[in-house]
């Protein structure tokens, strides 16, 4: 029997739909940063949720893929939340989010070279020591081919995963977007990364603005389900698959149908692997 889990990202707008359908949602992913400075009542509500369903934490503001050392104050907030909730895992992004005191406001792709591999690995190690758990690190979508790179995206990610010992959170819409935007084959990308180190998968949708924008406002497109099947055929370990939706919320049944489609893609990939 497969131990794969398929679930949804927690958003207040989806709360009622999630809580009334926990029999069809294996796991809930919560944005950790929303709770860093939250009142006690909000954190208590999160504890109540975690008593009803497995919860994993996802960070967005640590900016660990950087030559700048991670901020211990920000990491300590994550540490407190992990201590409170004791989730099975937490994750962050292979991104930098600030530089020279300037907040970019979102995830930016750093130069892909040895300096950022080393900086990211050092920051993952700091995070591991402060929090007691190693974050799974997520590949990001980017509209700009970041300057200053000497490594391919797949090589850069692989070096960070292998050198730091972290797991990979593989966002398949981010992979799809970057493959379209910068003209590479996403299946070859899967051949080049250590798929055995993928613990978690993100699914989402986006739109075309001259390049693919990963906006989390649209349904998961067909090529992303295809990639999920390809990943499941390459990986033997259980996968936690999370559907991310950040707005233009449809009825919960519409999202649950996408979870079912993800389960079908996983099953098809597992079947191919077993054949």
């Amino acid at each position, binding site marked *: 029997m497969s131990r794969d889990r398929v679930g949804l990202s927690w958003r207040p707008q989806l709360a009622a739909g999630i809580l009334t359908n926990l029999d069809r949602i294996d796991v809930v992913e919560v944005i950790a940063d929303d709770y860093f400075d939250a009142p006690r009542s909000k954190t208590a509500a999160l504890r109540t949720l975690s008593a009803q369903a497995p919860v994993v934490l996802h960070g967005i503001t640590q900016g660990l893929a950087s030559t700048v050392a991670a901020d211990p104050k920000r990491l300590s907030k994550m540490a407190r939340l992990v201590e409170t909730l004791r989730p099975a895992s937490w994750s962050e992004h292979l991104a930098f989010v600030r530089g020279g005191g300037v907040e970019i406001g979102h995830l930016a792709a750093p*130069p892909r070279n040895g*300096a950022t591999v080393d900086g990211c690995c050092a920051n993952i190690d700091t995070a591991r020591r402060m929090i007691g758990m190693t974050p799974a690190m997520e590949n990001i979508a980017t509209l700009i081919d970041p300057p200053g790179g000497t490594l391919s995206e797949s090589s850069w990610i692989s070096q960070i995963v292998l050198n730091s010992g972290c797991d990979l959170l593989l966002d398949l819409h981010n992979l799809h977007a970057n493959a379209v935007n910068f003209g590479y084959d996403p299946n070859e990308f899967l051949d080049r990364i250590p798929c055995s180190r993928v613990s978690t998968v993100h699914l989402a949708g986006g739109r075309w603005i001259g390049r693919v924008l990963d906006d989390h406002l649209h349904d998961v497109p067909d090529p992303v389900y295809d990639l999920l099947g390809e990943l499941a055929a390459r990986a033997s370990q259980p996968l936690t698959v999370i559907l991310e939706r950040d707005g233009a919320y449809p009825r919960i049944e519409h999202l649950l149908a996408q979870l079912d489609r993800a389960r079908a893609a996983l099953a098809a990939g597992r079947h191919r692997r077993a054949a």
Partner: protein
Amino acid sequence: MTSPAFEAFLARIYVDPQARAEFLADPRREARKAGLSDAEGEALAAIDRKGLEMAAASFKAKRAGR
């Protein structure tokens, strides 16, 4: 190549329209003014200009909460 100063430079041209315009007018000059190395200046001179404008617009929308 690349350093905290390089990341700071990128952050500035991603969020500051005037800095971005000055950079696009003469990338090597702006890199030198920021104290970046010649190699970093060359990398910036070859920047993905279409992607820079798209990313800057996307970051601006995110900061505005859209």
